[in-house]
């Protein structure tokens, strides 16, 4: 056990810190969930890419910098500490790319990954359906075989980024005879393809952060199926494990939020709120250290399995607590929005965003089932 950083890691971290210090825009970009902001964020991805920092842990051939997993975590810490813009490429970087790296063809990787790294193609995800949220295996959208490809039909919802993104990926039922997890396949499709109707959904801050996607016989060539048809569930679960595990929520974000929280007036008073602030700050540190522990394990050849559920529970509830405390410290001023809002509405916006944490990527109820059954070995079934 040695928790000191190596010289190489320190050099990497310092390089990232310095680049961010000189490049992060002084004024925040417009909201990612507006047409204008979306393009600003795309341009920012392109700047990151030019500096070799858009996908640091990827192979160089796809636009990465071949950083270690530990370095990626350090990168994320620096990124959030610098207050850099939200990642509009997030779905491509952290959900689709790991899937392609693991299950895609060489052709798919060569065609798609560089566009993600360069910020030229922005991806939405298309998992949920109105009747299949936590219970993803209950989905009904279908893909019918046709010449040289498939015709997708059905209704997808809570599709994040889809209001402005270029393409989307998701599961469709290719074998109508099969039930639940069987007979599903993994597709990629353009959001401007004939037959796709995108209806933006307003998040509870009023911004169109999701969309409903109505698909009516949308043609997808065989080249845009990931893995073998019918193998979609297994492939999606490997993505989901990524989504719920390390890659989606690195500790950097929560450390930065915790640090912001400590700077609010009253945060460090010896009051009930002050005590919760310190507890939340301790939790952010614990999440950081637990991540380093996981990274060490992976570096030694270990696997992250159901432990990802612990992460999801931990970060999503921590994020909510941090933002609730942020609001609490503002007192009645937190009630004001627009130009009157304290801290430019940072805590209000963050709070509304954090509310989604326990819901998406598998509700926390599902995560608790997974933790209880797979990690503690409690009986399955009866819930």
């Amino acid at each position: 056990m040695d928790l000191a950083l190596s010289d190489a890691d320190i050099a990497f971290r310092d390089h990232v810190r310095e680049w961010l210090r000189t490049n992060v825009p002084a004024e925040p970009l417009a909201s990612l969930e507006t047409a204008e902001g979306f393009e600003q964020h795309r341009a920012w991805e392109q700047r990151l890419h030019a500096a070799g920092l858009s996908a640091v842990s990827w192979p160089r051939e796809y636009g990465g910098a071949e950083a270690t997993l530990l370095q990626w975590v350090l990168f994320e810490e620096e990124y959030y500490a610098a207050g850099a813009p939200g990642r509009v490429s997030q779905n491509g970087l952290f959900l689709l790319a790991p899937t392609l790296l693991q299950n895609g063809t060489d052709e798919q990787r060569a065609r798609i990954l560089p566009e993600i790294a360069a910020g030229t193609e922005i991806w939405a995800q298309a998992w949920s359906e109105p009747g299949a949220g936590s219970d993803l295996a209950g989905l009904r959208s279908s893909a019918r075989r046709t010449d040289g490809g498939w015709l997708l039909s059905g209704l997808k919802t809570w599709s994040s980024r889809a209001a402005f993104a270029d393409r989307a990926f998701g599961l469709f039922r290719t074998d109508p005879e099969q039930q639940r997890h069987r007979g599903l396949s993994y597709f990629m499709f353009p959001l401007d393809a004939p037959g796709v109707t995108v209806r933006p959904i307003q998040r509870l801050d009023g911004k169109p952060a999701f969309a409903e996607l109505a698909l009516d016989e949308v043609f997808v060539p065989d080249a845009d199926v990931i893995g073998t048809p019918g193998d979609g569930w297994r492939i999606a679960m490997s993505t989901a494990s990524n989504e719920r595990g390390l890659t989606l929520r690195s500790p950097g974000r929560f450390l930065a939020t915790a640090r912001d929280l400590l700077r609010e007036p009253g945060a460090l008073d010896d009051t009930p709120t002050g005590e919760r602030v310190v507890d939340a700050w301790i939790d952010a540190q614990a999440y950081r250290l637990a991540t380093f522990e996981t990274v060490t394990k992976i570096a030694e050849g270990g696997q992250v399995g159901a432990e990802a559920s612990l992460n999801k529970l931990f970060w999503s509830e921590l994020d909510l607590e941090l933002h609730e405390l942020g609001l609490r410290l503002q007192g009645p001023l937190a009630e004001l929005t627009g130009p009157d809002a304290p801290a430019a509405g940072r805590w209000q916006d963050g709070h509304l965003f954090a509310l989604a944490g326990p819901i998406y990527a598998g509700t926390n109820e599902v995560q608790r089932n997974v933790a209880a059954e797979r990690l503690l070995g409690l009986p399955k079934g009866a819930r």
Partner: protein
Amino acid sequence: MDFTFTDEQRQLQEIAGKLAARSGHPRVLPPEDTSSAFDEQTWQLLSEQLGAPSLAVPERFDGAGYGLLESMIVLEALGAQLVPGPFLGSPILTAQAVLATGDEQAGQRLLPGIASGERIAALAWSEPGNDWPEGGFDCTATERDGEWSLTGHKVHVLDAARADVLLVAAEAAGTGPALFELTAPARTTASVPMDRTRELGEVRLDAAPARLLGSAGCGAAVLRRCRAVAAAAVATEQIGAARRWLPEIVAYTKTREQFGRPIGSFQALKHRLADCHVATEAAYSLCWAANWAVSTGDEQAEQLASMAKSACCEAYSAVAAEGVQMHGGLGITWEHEAHLHLKRAHSGQQLFGTPRRHRELLHRG
């Protein structure tokens, strides 16, 4: 001792409940619409058909001469449906403030209009960084030749931009805090609160002409009374909403199926909903004890009102949070009602003292 409503009170409860449920107010405004949350039609029905604003106003001021308890029955019904409007701010809070000053002339001048619902009155009280205090205002009142003028900045004023009558809490040199009535229109700006079902605003006063209500130096006692009334009133709104919304959450979990079963059959969810029910019912008892106490002027009124505010806000917040979580994706969209409760629970917490502040008051009391 009798905890039950009279038949007349039950009737009022029923009528107010129907009126509130029929309220034409679109519960979910489009996000870009930051316009007023005021529901003109419901206000007219309340005023003209039900005479609700007159309930707690004594007959000598053209009121119906019932008690504050009856007003709270109506307020609970309005709160349950998140109906916007000045019922809390004008006929409850501001009218009670006028009554608390003991100023008969002011009563004659102001209360008939408030009781009829024709005039809307607001109480400008909080200042930046000084939330609903008993005194220590930055806003000053100066007397010259028998005329008062006020200078200061008031925030979180309910219905500020809509008010026909503005009462202001200000500090008079030598005699301390007192309540004043502005005698000329003031500079008010509407805020855009997170909870769009309330209207909040700011008032800026620069040597604004005003009249003193009651006697000099009575401000602290009046404001303590106002805080108890306001705390009980907000508690009533919050618990009304919690007790209407919880069964709707329950109903949703009975129809929403995942993993081949209604999600309301999952034990973990059942237990959390049971906890919400426990908290809500306990807070409800406190709420009505507080309402009885503020209505009768019981010596425990301030204490009970602080307790009710604390308990009802916490209970509603818990219900609102479960409402979001249990509705899943729907819960985090603008289109669904769930977020309105979350925001309403937050604004209720903040107004007239957070639960934490009311706990502090209990510490002192």
